[in-house]
């Protein structure tokens, strides 16, 4: 009985402490995330300003999809009917295997060829298939939107 009480109390205190800390850090964390998302997109488009994007005819589609280590946030940039490029904003993939998500690596292929010609990478099958699926989803979504 004492054991249960101790553990419960300890877990409660720990949980409250973490929730409190989360309140304090959430704003800064979100800000950091926004900055790094902008940095990721900087290599793809000159500015993420919605006004600028509309003028250039660039459409950014954000997709959240399940990868190997949790949710991946993927952005597909379209210019007219073409894919300008695909970038990953955040992911939880295993270090090393996530190298395919580097703009100079595998994920760079989407800018050059049709999504149907891009193959998954063995060893990082789940990660690469998830990205391919996200790109296909976003293509389909655009088709539905523009009759």
């Amino acid at each position: 009985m004492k054991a249960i009480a101790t553990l419960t109390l300890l877990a409660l205190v720990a949980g409250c402490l973490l929730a409190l800390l989360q309140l304090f850090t959430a704003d800064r964390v979100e800000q950091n995330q926004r900055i790094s998302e902008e940095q990721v997109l900087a290599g793809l488009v000159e500015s993420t300003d919605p006004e600028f994007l509309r003028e250039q005819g660039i459409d950014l589609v954000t997709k959240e999809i399940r990868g190997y280590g949790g949710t991946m946030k993927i952005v597909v940039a379209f210019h007219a009917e073409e894919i300008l490029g695909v970038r990953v904003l955040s992911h939880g993939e295993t270090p090393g295997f996530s190298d395919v998500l580097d703009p100079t690596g595998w994920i760079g292929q989407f800018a050059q060829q049709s999504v149907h010609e891009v193959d998954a990478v063995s060893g990082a099958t789940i990660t690469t298939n998830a990205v391919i699926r996200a790109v296909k989803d976003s293509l389909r979504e655009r088709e539905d939107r523009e009759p």
Partner: protein
Amino acid sequence: MTLTQRLIDSLWTRNVATTQLLGLCPLLAVSYNVKNAVGLAVASTFVLVSSSCLISLFRKGIPENIRLPCFVLVIATFTTIAHMIMQAYAWDVYQQIALFVQIIVTNCMILGHVESVASKKDVKTSVVTAIGTALGFSLVLIVLGGIRQLLGLLTPFATQPVGSFFVIGIALAMINYLKDFSPQGRTDEPLHAPDLTQQNYERVAQ
């Protein structure tokens, strides 16, 4: 044992990383440059010292049979705190070593210290030895980070994961070779060897 002796002990003679070979996983994975090594060293030190302090403070209130869940809960809480603070104030480093900060929870250096020292000794002793242990670990981590970063200038092999096994293996061999010439000699036994007196045997057997 004086403070200087204790310091030499934890940095050299019974260094947690080179003698006891605890916490090797983060050591191998993160020591490819100094910046990441410092980040992980600070996080590990924080978790080790604060969880030792807290557990030592409440050691009499923790029932024997559920001590491990309690220890892990405390360590996990401090690890999450370190993780959140890094996420908010050290974003650069966080993006590089986020995964390795999370697995501080399973670092046997910390659980080992908590189990063998903090849950048995008073607060002062456990905090002092925790700081010593953490310093020893940090020193090895940062020095290896420096060595690998420098070697990386010559050959990228040293900064690759495979290279870490080679560099750390050779470094450990050299350290043990040097130890044969130092006055303290080699010591394989941990700082606080398990107290296997008759009374303790009975307690464990129960």
